[in-house]
């Protein structure tokens, strides 16, 4: 008995020692080199990971720390906290752990954790990253004193399991009923059971963008919040693919996430209000060219928004300004190309867009980027690097005609 209790005590001591040591290995975020905290959209994780790693690889003076509690959670953490020189106010700041990325000797990107200053109400957020306009999170109230800048575009899709049969498309009016009602009077076949409609929550940019497209406010959606408890898009995926009634099942996802799980899901083509036909995000069900997002045929799309405090003549924080400029591509950083980073995150860089909007779900207008990259974008996303016949390679402007310029190796129209 004595020996067994001694062994048990020793084991407990070792265990406690190890756990203490493990906790000590997780630094506080404040202790990292010149930390800049970015919080919000879970869809932006890939983009932030790439930028954080690029900063690390430079041995740079900035450590980008990211947390993905949801678009409006990040936006509200900034909007509620206009003055970072004082203690964290209620609703402002972030708590728990953040992620930052480093690069090892073999060039592999390593994910690391750090802890926020929970004991003092949390840590101030420098930049909110959101799938929606900041004013979408405030239900239209202006966000004076803050700057809202747009990064790449992203689409949201309604999906069904691969096992589902018969449905290829959904129209906005059907979506209005599917996600706006759960009574017996307003049923849309085959999505007649709200227990098989998988959505996100009111803070989700994914849901807010689709909400604007179908006319159902994000806080009024029926169905199951499959992204609860941090599950996010993964929770929706699991619910859709694991459904016991595939034909009745429908789920909301970002196209970036859908593109990585096409083996298990089918995207429903979407027809918006006043449209004549339904379209996929891409030119066909199997393409990756996002052609319909880019030219306005696919309506449920928004942008990656970067929201930070305004000092009146620019950003209040130089660190925030740096992150935003790098993401937008207006300021270079070694190891991070804004266009390539957007593409690898399954977003559409703005230079590949031909339409724009200034309000969530608002009317579209034509858009031409100062340095268009539609052909380059398709060369990166299409199988085998295929590009449309209208895309011609070049080495300089002399190789282009009809007023086109040579951008990223292709003659692009302005």
């Amino acid at each position, binding site marked *: 008995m004595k020996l067994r209790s001694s062994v048990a005590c020793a084991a407990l001591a070792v265990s406690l020692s190890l756990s203490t040591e493990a906790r000590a290995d997780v630094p506080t975020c404040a202790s990292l080199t010149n930390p800049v905290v970015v919080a919000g959209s879970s869809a932006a994780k890939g983009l932030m990971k790439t930028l954080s790693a690029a900063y690390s690889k430079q041995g740079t003076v900035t450590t980008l720390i990211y947390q993905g509690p949801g678009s409006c959670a990040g936006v509200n953490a900034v909007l509620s906290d206009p003055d970072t020189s004082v203690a964290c106010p209620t609703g402002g700041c972030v708590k728990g752990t953040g992620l930052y990325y480093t690069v090892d000797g073999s060039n592999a990107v390593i994910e690391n954790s750090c802890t926020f200053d929970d004991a003092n109400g949390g840590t101030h957020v420098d930049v909110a990253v959101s799938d929606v306009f900041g004013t979408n999170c405030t239900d239209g109230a202006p966000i004076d004193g803050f700057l809202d800048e747009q990064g790449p575009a992203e689409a949201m899709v309604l999906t069904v399991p691969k096992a589902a049969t018969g449905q290829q498309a959904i129209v906005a009016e059907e979506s209005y009923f599917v996600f706006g009602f759960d009574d017996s009077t307003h049923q*849309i076949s085959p999505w007649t059971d709200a227990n098989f409609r998988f959505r996100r929550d009111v803070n989700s940019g994914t849901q807010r963008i689709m909400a604007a497209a179908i006319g159902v406010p994000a806080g009024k959606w029926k169905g199951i919040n499959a992204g609860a408890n941090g599950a996010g898009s993964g929770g929706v995926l699991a619910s859709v693919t694991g459904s016991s009634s595939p034909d009745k099942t429908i789920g909301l996802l970002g196209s970036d996430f859908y593109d990585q799980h096409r083996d298990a899901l089918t995207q429903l083509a979407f*027809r918006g209000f006043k449209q004549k036909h339904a379209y996929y995000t891409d*030119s066909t069900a199997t393409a990756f060219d996002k*052609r319909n997002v880019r030219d306005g045929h696919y309506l449920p799309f928004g942008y990656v928004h970067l929201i930070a405090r305004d000092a009146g003549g620019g950003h209040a924080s130089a660190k925030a300004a740096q992150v935003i400029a790098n993401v937008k591509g207006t300021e270079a950083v070694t190891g991070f190309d804004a266009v390539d980073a957007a593409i690898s995150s399954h977003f559409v860089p703005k230079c590949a867009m031909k339409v724009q909007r200034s309000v969530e779900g608002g009317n579209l207008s034509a858009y031409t980027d100062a340095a268009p990259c539609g052909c380059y974008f398709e060369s990166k996303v299409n199988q085998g690097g295929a590009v449309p016949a209208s895309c011609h390679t070049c080495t300089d402007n002399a190789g282009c005609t009809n007023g086109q310029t040579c951008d990223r190796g292709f003659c692009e129209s302005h």
Partner: protein
Amino acid sequence: MKTTHKLLLAVALGFLATSLPACDATSDTPADSGVVADAGAHPVDGGLPVDGGPHDAGIPDAGEPSCFTNPTSHYELINGCTDSVAIDKTPVLPGLIDGGLPPLP
């Protein structure tokens, strides 16, 4: 438009929709005028009011092109001519009020 006229138009369009071979109310089928569901990219050539039924979904006016070649406005952009696959659907929408969507609960 008066309610009576809306109802008459809706009935007429509903009859037209059900009489078209591709207009199955519960399935997503290719329209019968060049819009192909999933057999590669084909030009959209719908000259017929493919979205018949009592709802407010952009039923084209007489004389309006089936698609817009040089779109500038929102309506023209979302209905611009394209080689992308387009899918037509004639949904059955319950509980409409005067042909329009009912308010949310």
